[in-house]
């Protein structure tokens, strides 16, 4: 089977052409060592099948971005049978710049001239025959969107001869210089000597790595700025031959794109418009009160719930298949599309769980088998799958913003702010997505070109408190209000969000000045014309993400969930600790009154579990955070245990409290029904201070995120960075919580913290300007000692 690679500029319709060529055979992987999508597929429309590799969108073959290095190495090393160079006819000049470089390689090339229909519509003409003659390779006019010309393109591609010698458009004074450089590489016996030769004259870092190349270049260039000359010559050649027709007719009239741009990047309105768009995206994904139809505050609510009795403002309906299905869309308020999809999925998953329970019951399986299958295996997978609809909805919206070209404008508008932290405006999107869910946010960091910037961004995304952490915030804040009679739930919640954001900003600043030091990446990019995103492209994109996510749910996340379940449900002597709620209630109705309504297995002996003893063991570590040894041996470990179960999914923190309340307060609390009561029971039962409760919230917000997010981070970070990232999360959460706890408990400790922070900052600054070098000072001391 022949292999062809698709190469071209970003935004030239390459993805559309790839999808049109490969259809359902496409699959996505990663290029080795980097997180750039590698998409492959098979074209079946011709006499024989052809494998298509989609190279990343690039402007040039210089090694400026990872994408450019990948494309260059692929063509040089993997030696495909040919390159299909897709060229946007509406932007011929810049697109052909890449073409002139590809032509210098020893590889058969065919040019697909895309969007010719648009050129003709605007009254322009491009002479395909003349272009073909000038570049010396076949040129076919196509429309990837309308799927015209594709068959002709592929037939011609298949018929190309398998050998082609590279040729350059550069001439004049350069001819002799290029020839001398070419001879140098010909002696080295590398493939495509012409390409290497021209790149060397362009001062290319990779080529100058060849032995002796620097000397040869110095001799040939003789002080001339060949880099500028070559770039200029390429463009001169292009404009002389092809752009005369194009450039002139670029009328000074405002295009539709310009008009949209006038509004969206307006001096005053740009930022407010952006905030409104963001609000709608989050509202449509997460809101349980669509468009505030049920009033803006709880007291304004007028819509009845479905199942509550009539006197409590409900309809008093009976729960059955039909009404439960309706409750996915409406129950006391109209839900947003994201919530409706989540409910529908959970509706189905609940039936599967129930069915499995019944099945095991019928087979007379042991209770621990039922718990393993239903709680651990299904529960673990479903907990993760349950997020999927909202993750995908969020992803869909952000993909639309990306595909329309708006995302590039957002980066344009916000770059000024983010540059201060050593990031580019692009880093804003993934961070803001983090408020919804860390997973799509981390995947979205792929739009960042600079690797260090990406690593820093992935690391701080969990600090932007996600939707699953909200119950921890509201429940604990409610608990503080109920137990200590002080504070305001909204104010505490809001303050916690701010602490997260401030932590993220500080962490980025520190990393960009120490471990991830590097210049602020340059911000030189194309602002593509606005266009309506292709529905098919969007769906294919989402389908890729779904596959990726489901695969993870079934592997790493699943395994870690089962381990936590094991630790939680068994004692060291492998006794199964979960008990039937009804049996407990019947045996001691007074003590277990709270279990009267609950069916199935409950764990009221977590203190005997392996996890419990781990909690007791690590408890002293949390002393500086306020929920360690000072809470006493009896129940002090519950916070440590809750934090550990939170790793499966952050909702579990409160769920664990519900189960642990049985141990601490002697009553089982259905956490789903009353999160605040759960928190109240824990706070009352353990005697924790309110300062420590706040430290606990912050610890959970900033520590290692859920396993699903960890798995994603591992996939998105460069090799070897993940373990440091985990360490970073642990250290950051510990320090921030300790800071908050001590300062809130004893205000004067603020001065100690300030002094320490000032010392650290001074140290970093001095070190970075080279005034302070531990090694040097140490060496000097040794020297002095010797002398002495």
């Amino acid at each position, binding site marked *: 089977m022949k292999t062809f690679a698709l190469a071209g500029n970003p935004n030239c319709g390459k993805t559309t052409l790839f999808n049109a060529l490969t259809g359902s055979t496409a699959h996505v992987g990663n290029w080795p060592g980097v997180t750039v999508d590698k998409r492959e597929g098979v074209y079946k429309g011709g006499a024989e099948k052809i494998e298509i590799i989609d190279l990343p969108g690039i*402007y*040039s073959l*210089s090694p*400026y971005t990872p994408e450019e290095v990948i494309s260059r190495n692929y063509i040089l090393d993997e030696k495909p049978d040919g390159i299909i160079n897709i060229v946007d006819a509406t*932007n011929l*000049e*810049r697109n052909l*710049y890449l073409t002139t470089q590809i032509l210098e390689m020893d590889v058969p090339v065919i040019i697909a001239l895309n969007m010719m229909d648009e050129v003709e519509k605007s009254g322009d003409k491009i002479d395909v025959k003349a272009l073909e003659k000038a570049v010396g390779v076949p040129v076919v006019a196509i429309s990837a969107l309308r799927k015209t010309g594709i068959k002709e393109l592929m037939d011609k591609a298949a018929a190309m001869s398998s050998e082609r010698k590279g040729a350059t458009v550069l001439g004049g004074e350069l001819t002799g210089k290029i020839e001398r450089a070419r001879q140098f590489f010909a002696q080295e016996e590398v493939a495509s000597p012409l390409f290497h030769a021209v790149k060397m004259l*362009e*001062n290319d870092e990779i080529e100058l790595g060849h032995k002796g190349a620097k000397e040869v270049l110095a001799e040939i260039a003789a002080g001339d700025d060949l*880099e*500028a000359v070559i*770039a*200029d010559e390429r*463009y*001169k050649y292009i404009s002389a031959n092809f*752009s005369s027709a*194009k*450039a002139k007719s*670029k009328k000074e009239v405002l295009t539709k794109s310009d008009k949209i741009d006038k509004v969206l*990047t*307006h*001096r*005053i309105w*740009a*930022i407010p418009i952006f905030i409104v768009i963001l609000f709608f995206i989050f509202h449509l994904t997460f809101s349980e009160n669509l468009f505030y139809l049920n009033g803006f505050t709880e007291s304004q609510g007028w819509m009845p719930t479905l199942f509550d009795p009539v006197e409590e403002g409900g309809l008093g309906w009976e729960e059955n298949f039909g009404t439960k299905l309706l409750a996915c869309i409406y129950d006391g308020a109209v839900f947003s599309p994201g919530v409706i999809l989540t409910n529908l999925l959970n509706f189905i998953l609940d039936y599967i769980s129930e069915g499995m329970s019944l099945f095991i019951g019928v087979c007379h399986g042991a209770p621990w088998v039922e718990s393993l299958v239903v709680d651990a295996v299904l529960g673990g997978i479903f907990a993760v799958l349950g997020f999927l609809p909202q993750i995908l909805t969020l992803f869909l919206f952000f993909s639309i913003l990306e595909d329309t070209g708006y995302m*590039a404008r957002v980066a*344009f*508008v916000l*770059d*000024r*702010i983010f*540059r201060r932290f050593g990031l580019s405006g692009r880093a804003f999107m993934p961070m803001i997505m983090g408020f919804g869910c860390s997973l799509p946010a981390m995947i979205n960091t792929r739009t960042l070109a600079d690797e260090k910037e990406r690593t820093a961004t992935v690391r701080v995304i969990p600090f932007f408190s996600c939707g699953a952490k909200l119950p921890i915030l509201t429940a604990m804040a409610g608990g503080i209000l109920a137990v200590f009679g002080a504070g305001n739930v909204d104010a505490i919640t809001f303050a916690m969000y701010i602490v997260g954001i401030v932590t993220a900003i500080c962490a980025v600043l520190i990393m960009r000045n120490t471990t991830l030091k590097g210049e602020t990446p*340059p*911000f*030189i*990019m*194309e*602002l*593509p*014309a606005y266009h309506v995103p292709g529905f098919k492209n969007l769906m294919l994109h989402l389908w890729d993400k779904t596959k990726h996510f489901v695969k993870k749910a079934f592997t790493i996340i699943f395994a870690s969930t089962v381990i936590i379940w094991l630790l939680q449900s068994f004692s060291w002597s492998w006794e199964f600790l979960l008990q039937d709620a009804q049996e407990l209630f019947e045996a001691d109705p007074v003590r277990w009154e709270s279990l009267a309504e609950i069916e199935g297995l409950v764990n009221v002996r977590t203190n005997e579990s392996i996890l419990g003893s781990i909690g007791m063991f690590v408890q002293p570590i949390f002393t500086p955070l306020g929920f360690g040894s000072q809470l006493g041996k009896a129940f002090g470990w519950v916070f440590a245990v809750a934090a550990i179960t939170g790793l499966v999914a952050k909702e579990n923190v409160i769920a664990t409290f519900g189960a642990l309340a049985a141990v601490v307060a002697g009553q089982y609390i259905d956490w789903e029904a009353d999160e605040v009561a759960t928190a109240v029971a824990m706070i009352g039962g353990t005697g924790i201070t309110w300062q420590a409760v706040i430290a606990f919230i912050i610890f959970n917000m900033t520590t290692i995120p859920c396993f699903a997010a960890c798995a994603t981070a591992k996939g998105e970070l460069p090799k070897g960075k993940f373990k440091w990232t985990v360490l970073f999360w642990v250290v950051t959460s510990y320090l921030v919580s300790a800071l908050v706890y001590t300062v809130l408990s004893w205000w004067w400790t603020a001065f100690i913290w300030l002094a320490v922070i000032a010392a650290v900052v001074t140290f970093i600054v001095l070190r970075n300007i080279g005034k302070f070098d531990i090694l040097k000072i140490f060496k000097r001391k040794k020297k002095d000692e010797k002398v002495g």
Partner: protein
Amino acid sequence: MTKLLSDFAVGESGVITKVNGEGRIRRRLFDMGVTPQAEVKMRKKAPLGDPIEVTVRGYELTLRKVEAACVEVDVK
């Protein structure tokens, strides 16, 4: 009159005469079509004054003022 691209007012245009700057930035500017003799027109500034948007070789390019300061332009 020669002027740095970063000092351009919105609507001004000219022909690039020289591209300075450190290796990577210069390379990128060349690759994006910012080369001597190319025509460039200042389109707009971002709401916070930086970065800027210019038209070069028939498309819209955005770059920061620090990067635009590498480009010398003969004002038309």
